[in-house]
């Protein structure tokens, strides 16, 4: 049985999965193959940026840059309790694992966009490990739950000392262990940033992304309402702090380039927060 802590974690993670799903659906619907190309490139940039940032962060903090610490810090689905993975081997230079339950695959299945979810599975981990290991490591994703023929994800990662530079060998061998990080908001903003970066100079694509973001906003509003109803909690500031990864508009927007931030604000944050404020004020979903 899920407890409230777990519910908070999975609800927060759905903010990420839904963003991906709605952006992918919209770009695929409005832009077709061009949308796929732009979106795959966005996932590649997202994964590479994430991996690069993690490596830089860990090396600055004197944490060993190795596969064990990569997976401790960022284990794919954060603290989401629906994520179930078994490690067959979990070492600094090799990681073999299988995933039997993935909340992203389930969510995208429910949104009827598993095929678009496959893009994520095909691109993300390759790009992430390239960023983390400066293209020395290797990701292998032979099976993934988003694919209709597969019943689990089968993954293998390698980061071999013999292939490393001298600097990488030092970072690999010396340092402390990582801890699991909270990164859902970072991921949401980075994914959005990477998508926006692909479409910012094209009006058709901007319209497609705007449509996707508006759909997303509808869905996260519904998610908050249904979570209030399912938990019997009161929709107030405390509830939003626990269940919603968004922080105050200002601090979120400051983390993005101005134009990118304005687009997100206009299509997501303004309506999301005004709806939440209205419901809080009118105590629509209070006990």
């Amino acid at each position, binding site marked *: 049985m899920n407890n409230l802590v777990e519910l908070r974690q999975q609800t927060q993670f759905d903010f990420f999965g839904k963003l991906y799903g709605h952006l992918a659906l919209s770009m695929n619907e409005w832009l077709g193959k061009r949308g796929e190309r732009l979106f795959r490139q966005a996932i590649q940039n997202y994964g590479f940026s994430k991996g690069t940032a993690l490596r830089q962060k860990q090396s600055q903090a004197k944490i060993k840059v190795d596969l064990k610490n990569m997976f401790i810090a960022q284990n794919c689905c954060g603290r989401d309790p629906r994520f179930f993975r078994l490690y067959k081997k979990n070492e600094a230079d090799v990681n073999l694992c299988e995933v039997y339950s993935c909340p992203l695959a389930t969510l995208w299945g429910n949104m009827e966009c598993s095929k678009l979810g496959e893009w994520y599975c*095909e691109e993300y981990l390759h790009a992430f490990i390239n960023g983390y290991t400066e293209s020395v490591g290797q990701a292998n994703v032979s099976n993934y739950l988003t694919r209709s023929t597969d019943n689990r994800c089968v993954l293998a990662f390698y980061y071999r000392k*013999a292939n490393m530079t001298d600097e990488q060998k030092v970072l690999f061998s010396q340092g402390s262990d990582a801890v699991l990080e909270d990164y859902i908001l970072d991921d949401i903003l980075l994914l959005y940033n990477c998508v926006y970066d692909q479409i910012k100079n094209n009006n058709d694509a901007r319209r497609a992304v705007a449509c996707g973001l508006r759909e997303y906003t509808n869905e996260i509003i519904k998610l908050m309402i249904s979570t209030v109803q399912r938990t019997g909690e009161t929709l107030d500031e405390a509830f939003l702090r626990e269940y919603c990864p968004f922080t105050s508009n200002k601090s979120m927007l400051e983390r993005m380039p101005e134009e990118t931030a304005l687009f997100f604000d206009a299509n997501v944050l303004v309506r999301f927060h005004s709806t939440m404020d209205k419901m809080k004020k009118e105590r629509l979903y209070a006990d």
Partner: protein
Amino acid sequence: MLTKEQQEATNLSDSFTLAYGFLGKSLIQMYGDLGEKALRDGTRAFGRDRAEALRRRHLEANYKVNMKSLFTVGYDLPSDPRFKRELQFIVDEARVSHTLYCPMAAIWKDYGMMDIGRIYCEEFHNACYSHYAYNYTKVNLSKTQTQAEDDYCAFNVLLIPENLPEELKPICFEQYDPDYSGPSHPLTSPTAKDGFSSLYIKILHHIFCAAIAVLGEKGILAVQGALQFSAKHALQLFGQQNEQLTQDYFFRNYPLAQNIEDEKMWSDYDSHNLKQLVLKNFYDVVYATIP
């Protein structure tokens, strides 16, 4: 029970597999991490070389450079009757397949060289399949029989059209080339003897060059030792199969020409006097035993 031709093919295949193992073992035993680096670098170079050769053949015969061509048209690895595979699907964009029995993994395991075989699986497939399609292939091999945890190999090799730049799309996929007229002629795989001989010289060349690049002149010692060991081992193995071991039998079953001068490939693969090294450390050992 294998036919004579199949027995020769398996000997050729095993000799290639073992030569890789002996080269790897020699490099790592003598030079540790640097030896491993040379082996990995050389294996990747071998993969890229094979990929380029195959791509060139495909383009010359007007085949599209995609996953279906890579795995079904004139592949340079001759078929080994012992391989057991379960193909899930093969289309222009993807090849998903399980290898249920791999004779290469089996022999590395038998000889206690799984760790060397592991290096081959990790480096070769990725380098070769990726390079073949201009480094746009996504190579996924999450399970391999050279890994103690796995009992089959899981290949998921993808070439996604939307990841390609516009200029490569018509080269890779028919649907982006409206004037495409199809292949100009069929391509076949080489015979076991020709195929494994070509692979043998290529892998020897690339590992040798990598050993010199990484280790300098001392890299030659490791390759020299592996060549001598390979010759002695093959003599022993073929001697068990054939009491009256002759040069003819030996070289029908080993992936090198009976007379080194008959092998045309040396003209392209004789860097750093490798041909002389092979003559002295392999052929001379064989000729001394079976004149």
